[in-house]
């Protein structure tokens, strides 16, 4: 059995990550890690045990662009529905 036989389209790669932990990059400087439970053609995702990281750039008034302080806000959610239009990339987390 050829292990790659089931892979015919990009979405099949996401399918491989079902019920695995994935890393999702979102618009608005947000990142998620969580266990992927379901996805669809719009890349709407359902994740559980999610940790969200939001990057916030606090640029002081008048400061030149690119010189703001970056702070990261984290929050955790049990279960999350991610709307597909915000998804930039989905990847398996780097294995240790």
């Amino acid at each position: 059995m050829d292990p790659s036989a089931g892979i015919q389209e990009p979405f099949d790669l996401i399918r491989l990550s079902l019920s695995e932990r994935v890393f999702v990059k979102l618009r608005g400087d947000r990142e998620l890690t969580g266990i992927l439970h379901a996805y669809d053609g719009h890349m709407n995702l359902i994740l559980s045990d999610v940790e969200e990281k939001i990057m916030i750039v606090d640029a002081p008034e008048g400061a030149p662009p690119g010189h703001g302080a970056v702070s990261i806000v984290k929050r955790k959610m049990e279960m999350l529905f991610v709307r597909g239009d915000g998804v930039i990339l989905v990847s398996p987390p780097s294995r240790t």
Partner: protein
Amino acid sequence: MSFFGFEQSDQLEREKQKFLEGKKEQEDLAVYTWGEESYDGLGDALQEGGDELNDETFGGTGAVGKDFDFAQQNHQLDERLEAVPQSDVFHQVNSQAGPSREAGASQARQAHSLWDEKSPFSVLPRHHNGSARSPVEHNRTSSAARSSHLSNGSLSASVSQVRTHSPGVVGVQPIGQAGVRTLQEIEAEMRAAAQQSRNLTTAATQRQQLMQEQQAQQAQQQSHFHQQQRAAPPRMHPQSQSPRFHQQQQQQQLMQQQLMREQLLEQQLREQQLRERELQLREQQLLREQQRRERHLLDIELQEQLRLEEVERQLRAQRLSDVQNQQLLPNRYLHQRQASNPSPIAQHRRQQSPALMDTLQAQYQQNGQHIPHNIQLQQRLLNELAQAEFMQSMATPEEQEALRVEAMRRIMETERMEEKRRRKAAKIAHMSRYNDLMTQSDKDFITRIQVSQLVTQDPYADDFYAQVYGAILRSRMGLQASDERVLKFGSGGGVGLGLGQKGTGRRPNAMQRMEQQVERIVNNARQREQEKGEPRLFSTAPHSLQGALGKTSGRSYKAAPRQLLQVDSAAANGGSPTMGHAHISKEDAIRRHGEGAAKEAAKMGAEALGGVTDPDGIVRQDPLTSKETLAILENLYDLVLNIEQLRREQPSPDSDDFEMVGIWNARYNESVQQLWDGLRVMVPLETSNPHPFISLITPTKGKKLLPRISRHLTSQQMLTMLTLLVACFSQMDIVTHAPILDAPEETPEQAELERQTQTFLGSVVQSILPGVAKAGLRLVSGLLGLLLERSDIIAITQTRMRPGLALLTLFLSRVELIKQSMSSATDLSELPSQEETEQWELMFDHLFQLLHPSLLYLFPSTRIAVHLARLPPDTPVPALHTEAMDQPVWQFLAALALHSSNEQQQALVTALRGKVLENVASANKGWVADEDERLAKLGNVNLFLHALGLDSSQISV
């Protein structure tokens, strides 16, 4: 075109008639070509009825109200319409009766024609100037002509008569006559009354023979007669418009039926006319003179009295009439239903009725139309008088008062009942407003459309969640696990029925009916298909059910959107597997392919040469990458789903269709074999580290796959899997990464590993447990040997969350069970042989020797303590429930102690002495946080000590 007035009061009546007559004269001046020879008769087809509503329709009356009541006003309107001409005739007869027989006859005809206004023919043209018509035309034309035939000649005459008479007539309303009456007159009056009642009975019998519906209507008329006299002139209300329209439609329907049977009717009609005329003759000759006067007297007297009465009883009468209206509602609906769905009998009656109605009504009106009312009124007056007398005869005022109270109570009660009934009737009427709007075929059509949307190729899968949930519910409720609630059709299609409905009531019945209906439709479709089977053989349509349930135009909602990008998937699937990576660059794929190819070739060569068992022939491979693992797992899941689907489609074992059973078996076995191959259990142990199978059960979903496939595999296969698992135990991530769990600080890795370990215990161990539970001593010692040989037993046992210890405990307890059965078993063949027992002892000794030095480190609490000692002293120590963690270890040690020899037990106690004492001391001296912890510590110690025949209470610190 109506020339009847609505008014009852003389003053108004007079004005009205004047006005109407004036209008008529103007109308007559107009020249119509209808009657001429050249006229093509199209005018007959015009609908000229219903003009009396023109004012309302086109805004002739004042402001139009908003309180339309479409549902309930129909019949009231009808009654009003019917009542009006009747009362009109009443006056005309009164005022006119007599001079000649001709006049009376014409009056009757006029009455008839007036009445006819309400008959189905009223929508047909009225030939007021149709006297110019030739007889030939009369015969030729439709029923319109017939109706005119009835009324035409006489009507024109009567119209003119009315015109000539009426000025005088109106003036002669003989009010003053009531004052002077001679004895003779009174005598005559009484005689006339008797005569009239006799006449009435003859008329009634005729009426009964012919018309039952008619009676109902007349009852209505009577009830409204009172209303009419008392109430304001019955103007048409704005809301009456639409019912009238409705009625017209009905009449049109009827008219069509009429046209078809004109001949027959005409004959009947003529007979009827003859009879009518005879009756008229006789009656009129006998009665005319008397009737004329007495009717006047009676009427006037009665009307006066009635007015007085009515003032008192106005409320009650109002209620009465209301109730009657309500009661007549069902009749009305029955009426409509007959019209929309005519049964043969109803049709027949309907065909007859208009004509008969006409004649009858004319007859009735002329003879005794007003007399029944008078009689009725008289009777009522008599009753009142009798009542009053009775009341007077009751002597005391108390009794009267009591009676009054009682009567009041009854009245109130009756009122309530009536109110209730009226509400109920209103509700029914409201609900049945739209009854029979759709025909049965309409309904069937819609049902077919709906059902066709439900039909799918795989009803179970489309209804999957409902089916699975239903199965779970059924099993939870202990019900018989009946087969799926799916309607299957011949060629794979079907309808999912969802969850079974529980309980009683209307809804389940509706569901059942729906199911039955669907089944019926499907069966019908199938039958039709079979009937069409012959020609279908030659047709090219492959789907036997195509179009069976009707067609949906265009693409259904289920169809995929139109593909803009055409990827040649056939090329990707077939040929080189690397082409499958549509998204992976070609070079990458080729490179990868090239790397693996050499090794694969070597391996295949080795297999061909020496077979798999030859250890030298084994080609070592790189372990599966995580992506490969996941891809394989996806394939395996697909296979599992397929197999599960196959099992649902399993033909019943007693099926006669051996071919089908055979095909099914072949497919099933093939799928299971693919699954088995996919698991890579039979791949030699040395192929890679970790073994491919171990790689497969590394992800959570790999572990969760095992329970799902265990029921498809044979017990032999499961045992093989168990052996492999034991042999490769130390390769598993949960064992290799176990030290992470001993770290006191919590990390994501730790949480992940903990979750993995839980899943392993829940899924893998649970699915292989049955295999161990049935294993013989020989197999268990073999497995233990394998474990000891291939794995670092110390590493295995030092896994928190006890996957390793669990396995060992499992083995030990199994052996214990076998030993117990040895002492009690009677069947010698089941007993393990001496040799096997010795082998087990050997293995156990080996295990003990290996474990003995590190017994203390089995305890997570000890290991954590070591970790903590290594940490900088100021690190905050998280609160850990070490007792709970230690419990499996104590359990294992208890099992170990049971199997141990005396010396081994000694060694155990010596090694664990410190730990036991520590626990007991801390429990006894209160070095514990709470009571629960103390009990846990003591419980743990006792678990172990009991196995040795000791107890913690024996230890004194």
